[in-house]
Structures are given as structure tokens and as C-alpha cells.
């Protein structure tokens, strides 16, 4: 089984993000970066499936040379090899999905596993676009509800599982009012939600091995994709600071305020 996973480079959520005074973007000096946590969950799920059914996990990222750090991280976790689409400058979701489509057509994986969204711009679109472009089935927001640490959870049927005939995946996905289970014919696109798994640490032997694993370099030109963004970011601004709350003496006052001031009850 061949599985393609993604490793987007995003700002470390622990970093303090500041918007540039002119609103043209964020201040990048001094920021730390890491793999998009949803993608990391996707890498982990890919590795678990590959370990169970045999096969390889190929990781892809798009960006400048810096994204090699995230590719190496996925390789250190256990991915077999990496594809780096070298591109500097803005990209929108359609451009990313178009690039991934070409990589998928080249690699011909049985399954693509991506984070449901990246924590920088929270778009939640690439997986869906990719499935559409490829004409593949999709199962988004693969998830579980049980505690991740319990023994019961560990023994439970995985949320992403290959069917007995090996021709489809059964995916438990998080929806508004509970869990839905889908069966999708392979090849397919799966996107991962937060509660799917706990990604492993990159072990030292993994880190050492990752040094010699190949990273193939591609470019949008080589892939024949025009990535000129169709979406333009006009301005970025920090969310307004939250005002301090107030304390109310009793329930009656609370209800009165909710009714007359907030007008929600």
C-alpha cells in the first residue's frame, strides 16, 4: 500500500504572532516553525497503516528550502522518502491542491492522508479540492472520541481501516452530532481531525536515518501548474483585544443582562 501524506510548514503555536504594522502579513523574525499538527497526525496515521499492511509512506511539502525541515521531521518519524515542491511566494488553496494533484498523478498512491486544515490560515479546503480534482472519493475529519490514552482506545478498531478485500477504507469521521462511518473506494483522500491519534516522537535512530533518505525536488513549472493565486490577501489585522468580563451578583441579574443587553435569551 502506498500512502502519500503532507507536511506543511506552519508557525509554532507557542510563538507569539504579531501582525506587521502595514497589515501586509505577520512579522516573521524570531518565529519558530513546525509541521502542521493536523498533518503530523496524518503522517502518524499513514505510518500505522503502512506498518499494518506493508508499503511505503511518501511525504510532500510545498515551499522554500525551509520546508525540508518539516520533511525531515516526517522522514524521522518513519516516512520512506520525500517530495519537495520548491516554490517561494504566495499560494492559495486551489494552487496547492493543483500541485498536489500533479504529485499524486506522478506517485500514484492508494491513499492520500492530509491534515483537515493547517493551523496558520485554518482554511480546511485542500483535501476536498484535491479529491475533486482527482475524481477520487473523500472522507474528511477522520477522528475518534475515546480517550487517546486508554487501553480500550488502543485495542479499538482504528478510525481509518482498510477493508478486508483491501479495496476500500472505512473511516470514522467527526460530524456535528456525533460520528459517521464512511466506506470509500481506493484510491481515496482522507483528512485528519485532532482526535485521530497521538503522533509518535521522532526517535534518534529515526533522525539519523532521515539524514540519508531522499528528498526529490520538483517545481510548479516542472509539474506544469500555474499557481498564480486567485485569492489576494488585502489586509491582516490582529483580532480585537477581549474586554474584561464582569461579575454578576446573582442569577436574576445574569438572566436580565443576557436578555436586555446581550439579547441572547
Amino acid at each position, binding site marked *: 500500500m502506498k500512502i502519500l501524506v503532507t507536511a506543511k510548514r506552519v508557525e509554532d503555536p507557542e510563538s507569539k504572532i504579531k501582525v506587521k504594522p502595514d497589515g501586509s502579513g505577520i512579522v516573521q523574525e524570531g518565529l519558530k516553525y513546525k509541521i502542521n499538527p493536523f498533518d503530523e497526525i496524518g503522517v502518524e496515521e499513514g505510518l500505522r497503516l503502512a506498518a499494518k499492511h506493508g508499503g511505503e509512506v511518501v511525504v510532500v511539502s510545498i515551499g522554500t528550502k525551509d520546508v525540508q*525541515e518539516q520533511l525531515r521531521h516526517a522522514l*524521522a518519524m518513519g516516512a520512506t522518502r520525500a517530495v519537495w515542491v520548491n516554490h517561494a511566494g504566495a499560494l492559495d488553496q486551489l494552487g496547492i491542491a493543483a500541485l498536489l494533484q500533479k504529485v499524486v498523478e506522478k506517485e500514484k498512491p492508494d491513499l492520500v492522508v492530509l491534515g483537515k486544515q493547517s493551523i496558520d490560515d485554518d482554511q480546511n479546503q485542500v483535501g476536498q479540492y484535491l479529491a475533486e480534482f482527482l475524481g477520487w472519493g473523500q472522507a474528511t475529519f477522520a477522528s475518534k472520541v475515546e480517550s487517546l490514552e486508554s487501553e480500550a482506545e488502543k485495542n479499538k478498531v482504528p478510525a481509518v481501516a482498510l477493508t478486508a478485500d483491501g479495496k476500500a477504507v472505512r473511516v470514522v469521521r467527526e460530524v456535528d452530532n456525533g460520528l459517521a462511518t464512511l466506506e470509500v473506494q481506493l484510491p481515496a483522500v482522507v483528512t485528519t481531525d485532532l482526535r485521530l491519534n497521538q503522533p509518535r516522537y521522532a526517535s*534518534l535512530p529515526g*533522525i539519523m536515518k532521515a539524514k540519508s533518505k531522499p528528498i526529490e525536488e520538483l517545481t510548479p513549472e516542472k509539474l506544469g501548474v500555474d499557481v498564480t493565486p486567485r485569492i489576494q490577501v488585502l489586509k491582516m489585522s490582529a483580532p480585537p483585544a477581549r474586554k474584561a468580563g464582569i461579575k454578576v451578583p446573582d442569577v436574576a441579574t445574569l438572566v436580565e443582562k443576557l436578555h436586555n443587553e446581550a439579547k441572547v435569551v
Partner: protein
Amino acid sequence: MLHGQGLFQEEHEAFRRTVRAVVEKELRPFAQEWEAKEEFPRELFRRFGELGFLGLKYPEAYGGSAAGELYEAVLLEELGRCGSGGVSAGLGAQFTISTGPLHLFGTEDQKHRWLAPAIRGEKVGALGITEPDAGSDVAGIRTTAHRDGDHYVINGSKTYITNGVRADFVVLAVKTDPSRGHKGLSMVVVEKGTPGFSVGRKLQKLGWRASDTAELFFEDCRVPAENLLGVEGQGFSQIMGNFQWERLSLALGAVGAMDDMLETALEHVKQRRAFGQTLSGFQVVRHKLAELFTSRECARQLTYHALRLHLAGEYAVAQTSMAKKVATETCCRVADECLQLHGGAGYMMEYDIQRHWRDARLGPIGGGTSEVMNEIIAKQLGL
């Protein structure tokens, strides 16, 4: 990367991220709880073994990864950030002082008996040197080991032994020939449960509270002669050799602890308000932090310098002693100043800074006092 430019490579930084994630998820959240219990779970040794952290510089034949001391340096520095000196000391002792001599001087059989299970985290080790009447003065120890046939008979006591209560084996400094001063010193391994070996009370400490620190007693304790480490009479130089890495490890831990404290203090002064502005609005506070960060950088770079020399195989006794002294003393001062920046809150047990302040105080005492460091440096000057 900026701090250790030219020393750490990309793969060391990748390993640093792994250790940091482990520290953030599995150690730091429990610092307060383990401090109150005066113990961290024994399971942590096994967990660290599983993660491969206990055998970074040891050969693969014994379950290590032979990755080298620079990786262990990364581990030590990051462990310093776990918020509990006791946890980093207890775990650190396992892969630095207690297994170091086994690796350097042990026979094949000894390594399989004690080093391999210690690397897996199954057996806990301790190093027993300090006695009620001799600490930094290693040659002055009084615990004796008399040869009797194919056994040594050990008599004496040890104190302030890290991991002493839980240790499955103790690498013990003994006098095999009390008449020959430092040339009469040897190292011998004593296993838990050996008749005549008993563990006294767990000692109460100012800091490092989550680590177990014990008194050990030996009364006609018979140990097979094959438990001798290396050559009889070579104990002093064996101990001195092992001290170099122990001192570097203490310096690295102090640097990591300073990172943790200063990051917290920096956030605190940006948020805490007094007299209508944040503390960071006061020039005196900004300058104080500028000085503290400068001091930490000095300590870090001297430590890295000693580390570089050590890794290059240079005779770096003076630089290592300087680094140990400067880093641990700077750490005490930084802890004290950071506590001051916290004001009244800094004196409260619910804030982390008080624990750092207490933990830091061990630095200029353990692994050779600052005074002993000065003596070593002076000796290197030919004085």
C-alpha cells in the same frame, strides 16, 4: 540554533525538538506534583530507556545508540528545562555518573549485568562516593573493602547518594588499601539485597526534592571480587575522569534551567502591572533582564566552549571546572533575580520560580564545590 552555531548540527536540533516535546508533555506538567511527593515515578526510567535517552553515548551492543556525547549534551540541556531539578538529577544520574564508570572500566560481563539493563531503564543505578566525612575530598573517604579470598568485605557508609533509595546497584568508591591515600582507592559494584548493605532514610533536602537521596550503610558486606571495576588502586583516576562529564552535565543543566526561568520572567514582566504600567515599562526592569540574559549567554558559551574542547579530546579540566562554576553560580543569581522580579508571588509555593531558586542552590555544591573548582583551576595555573 543561534546559540550553538557551529556546535550543533541539524540532526542535533531535530533531537532537541524531540526531547523538548517529551519534557513538555511528560515531565513539566508533573513537576509540582512530584515535588510534593518527593519522588518521581520509577516508571520514568523505563520510559527514558524506551525513548533511547539512557544510552546515547553507549555502544549498540548494550542497547545504546552510540550517537555520542553531543546528543547527550542536548538531552541534559533540555532536561534542565523540565522545571524540576530533582527529576533531571535523578534521570541524569542514571546516564551520566552511575553508568559512566561501567562503560569506561567495566568488563564485558559487567556491562551486560548492569550497563545494559540500566540503558533499558530496568535497573536503576547510583554512584556512591560522598561520605559523612568526605565529599569533594575524594581521597579522604573511609569506606574500606578488604580482600578475603574471592570476595571483598565492605565496611563504611555513604551519604547524599542520588537515586540511593531506589538503586538496584551502586557503583561504590572504596579504599582497598587505606595505607596508600588516593592510590588505595578502587571502585566496586554492590547490588541491592547484598547482605550487609542497607539503605538508611531518604534525606530531606532544600531543593531537588523529587529526586531520592539516601544514606547507605555497609557492614561486613561481602561482594564477589569480580564486581571490582577496572584495576584495584585505580579508583581515584577513574572517579576524576568521570567527573569531567558530570561537571559538564551540571553546567548544561544549569543553562537549560536558566532558559526556563528567564522565559517565564520575561512573560511575567510583560504582563504584571504596577504603578499604571507593565513591569517591563520600567527601565530598571528592562536593564535587569538585559543583564540576566547577558550573564546566561556568557555561561552558555563558556559551557559550549568546554564541551567543544572535551569532545575534541582536549585536556579541558580547567575550562570544564570554569564552566561548571560559572554556569551553576550564574544560575543561582538568575534564579534569585527572577524570584525578585516576581515580587510577593515569587515567594509563594504555587509559583515555579521558588522551586528553581531552591534547586539552583545545589549547583555550586554538587559534583565538586565552587571552591574545589577554584582549586582545580589554580592547579592548572601551576599554583
